[in-house]
């Protein structure tokens, strides 16, 4: 499941974006990359959701168009095909992305075009089991100790998580300790192609590679069972400890300073 605020944010972003004009193929592709690619590919295999190659042959266009516009209506409305898909993909619901009818048709055309030409869009999820090496690398990427190839900022800049040390990470985004539980199988693709508008602004220009997203996902999975990072007390405590040790150091460095003479006069015997 997506974290709660995500659909609202997606909706907001949808309203803000100037999508009123009919979409060309170029626009449809960019929208696919933005909104669909975190869960779907065209011809590159399954991710969170099904591979969309040949969708036009599998389902009627009007059904697909309605599903794309408002998946919840069909999922909750007792549609048999939708219910079967939900079961097939372990109960992962497609969120309502606020796609208009025109956009949905453009997207379906895009899918048809790709199917016809045999090109693929998107990359399939890495299927192998995460190794301890992956987890370690994921932690290093999260902390910024290893840089992302694209030069994207480390996760730490905005997110905190368990196991990062006393200072934790940033507070702009949510604590990611439980992210793997919330996102489930969508975790890695959510990292690779984030559907969150705040993250999109940053990662669209500097996307993560599949390997990097897999490693970070592996790290987040490894800490999923732990309680969220508690940095609320650690930060002030570390601050006080730092201040005191800084003052002690300054006092030590300046121990030969002038401390006044008259008041320190002692009756000599």
């Amino acid at each position: 499941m997506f974290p709660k605020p995500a659909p609202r944010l997606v909706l907001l972003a949808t309203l803000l974006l100037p999508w009123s004009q009919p979409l060309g193929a170029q626009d449809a592709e960019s929208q696919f990359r933005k909104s669909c690619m975190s869960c779907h590919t065209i011809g590159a295999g399954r991710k969170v959701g099904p591979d969309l190659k040949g969708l036009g042959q599998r389902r009627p266009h009007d059904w697909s168009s309605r599903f794309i516009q408002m998946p919840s209506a069909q999922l909750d409305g007792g549609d048999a095909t939708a219910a079967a898909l939900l079961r097939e993909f372990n109960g992962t619901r497609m969120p309502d992305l606020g796609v208009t009818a025109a956009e949905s048709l453009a997207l379906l055309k895009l899918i048809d075009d790709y199917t016809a030409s045999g090109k693929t869009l998107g990359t399939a999820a890495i299927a192998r089991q995460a190794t301890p090496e992956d987890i370690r690398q994921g932690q290093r990427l999260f902390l910024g100790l290893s840089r992302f190839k694209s030069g994207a900022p480390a996760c730490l800049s905005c997110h905190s998580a368990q196991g990062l040390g006393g200072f934790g990470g940033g507070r702009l985004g949510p604590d990611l300790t439980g992210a793997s539980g919330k996102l489930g199988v969508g975790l890695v693709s959510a990292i690779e192609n984030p559907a969150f508008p705040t993250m999109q602004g940053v990662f669209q220009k500097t996307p993560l590679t599949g390997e990097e997203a897999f490693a970070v996902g592996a790290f987040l999975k490894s800490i999923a069972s732990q309680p969220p990072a508690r940095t609320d007390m650690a930060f002030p405590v570390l601050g006080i400890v730092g201040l005191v040790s800084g003052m002690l150091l300054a006092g030590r460095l300046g121990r030969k300073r002038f401390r006044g003479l008259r008041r320190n006069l002692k009756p000599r015997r």
Partner: protein
Amino acid sequence: MDIRSQVAMVFHLDKCIGCHTCSIACKNVWTDRKGADYMWWNNVETKPGTGYPTQWENQEEYKGGWVVKDGKLQLRLTAKGKFLQKIFHQPSMPTMDEYYEPWTYRYEDLFTGPEQDDQPTAIPISKVTGEYIDIEAGPNWDDDLGGSTLYARNDVNLSALSEEQRLQLLSIETLVMFYLPRICNHCANPACVAACPSGALYKRGEDGIVLVNQKVCRGWRYCVSACPYKKVFYNWSTGKSEKCLLCYPRVETGQAPACFHSCVGRIRYMGVLLYDADKIQAAGLRPDAELVTAHRDLLADPNDPAVIESARRNGVSEQTLQAARKSPVYQFVKAWGLALAPHPEYRTFPSLFYVPALGPVTYSMENGVALNPTSVDEIFAPLDQARLPMAYLANLFGAGQEAPVRYAMKKMLAIRTWKRAQTVGDVDMKLALAGLREADCDPVQAEAIYRITSLCTFEERFVIPPSHREQAVEVLTNPLERKGASGFGFREAPQRGM
């Protein structure tokens, strides 16, 4: 050889009665101003004591003067490279606590107090806050508190004394003290001048007086830290540093400075010294034990033709050279070896020298009647039995070396004995003459020392050459510039008739 002239001074401590007239004269003339309240360009300290500011001799803390490091003279305050590091914060400066919080009294209370059973009093109020203060320190606290044991015991110069000697200093029967009047030493190698980042301090070429240019001073206060005698003061009102200017307006007109002029005990002598500026650096590098000799070697013989020639080349006037030949300071310091600079180990080569004080005359008493002495030792205690240990004076005047102090004291003692043999007659003349010889003295020299010590006239004490300021002024401005433009005549045109 680079001979320069220096107005130099000798203070004869044997004659100082500690009346502080000098301090008051100076205060009235120069430092009775806002921001200068706490400045005592001239002060009189009770020794042993901590002085003013408190423990000014403690260079471990105040970091004044020069030290030899890697074969070079260097300010103790800071190395050249680290100079700017401390420019906004002088960590070794005396604080107000080491001086004192200046105060006055609320005199108007005496007139405006309500009618009551008791006399009204003028309470002390701080000149800093304007509030009542409980006075904790003053410019002469050692003395005002009767040389309290606290202050006397913390005299830095006592470091060379044994525990026993210190106890003896403070026990009532052997209690001893003397006065040490201090002004700026107008050093030949002044640390304050060397430390000033603005170049505001300078040593005058014509007479060696060290001054602070008030227009250039930026108040960095390196001079305050660097002066080992703590004789540069910071004026909190003007934001500039100030110091003793040896009353140069008086000296330029042939008068002695105010503190010299007003001295009741006539302890102060002033005269010209010629010194060789080329030798200063080498002298400053000599080890502590040789500093007194090195300092005396700097001083040039005013009768030596080579010296006169070099002085003339430097523009020293004939009258200054004449004054140098009559200088009482040259006699005291170089010819007689009686006067010693304070703390030569600071390596600033002061132009102020002190004749150390002898102990009191002792008598044997019986039934309240003084007995005729049977030996010299009964009149004047021998140096080694003096109440003030030689080690103390050696720390003060000899950079820890007893020999120069001992030499001066021995000579003074011999002259006193000889004079007593002459005037009182209770000392064997042969013994007295033998004593003179032993003290590197003869009756002629002894008589000269006796005269300048006891019977000196004003002109003998102060041999101040004319400064020829009129010539100096001519270099800068044309004295005839205003001739015909002002002077005699009417300031306003007369009006007559209608």
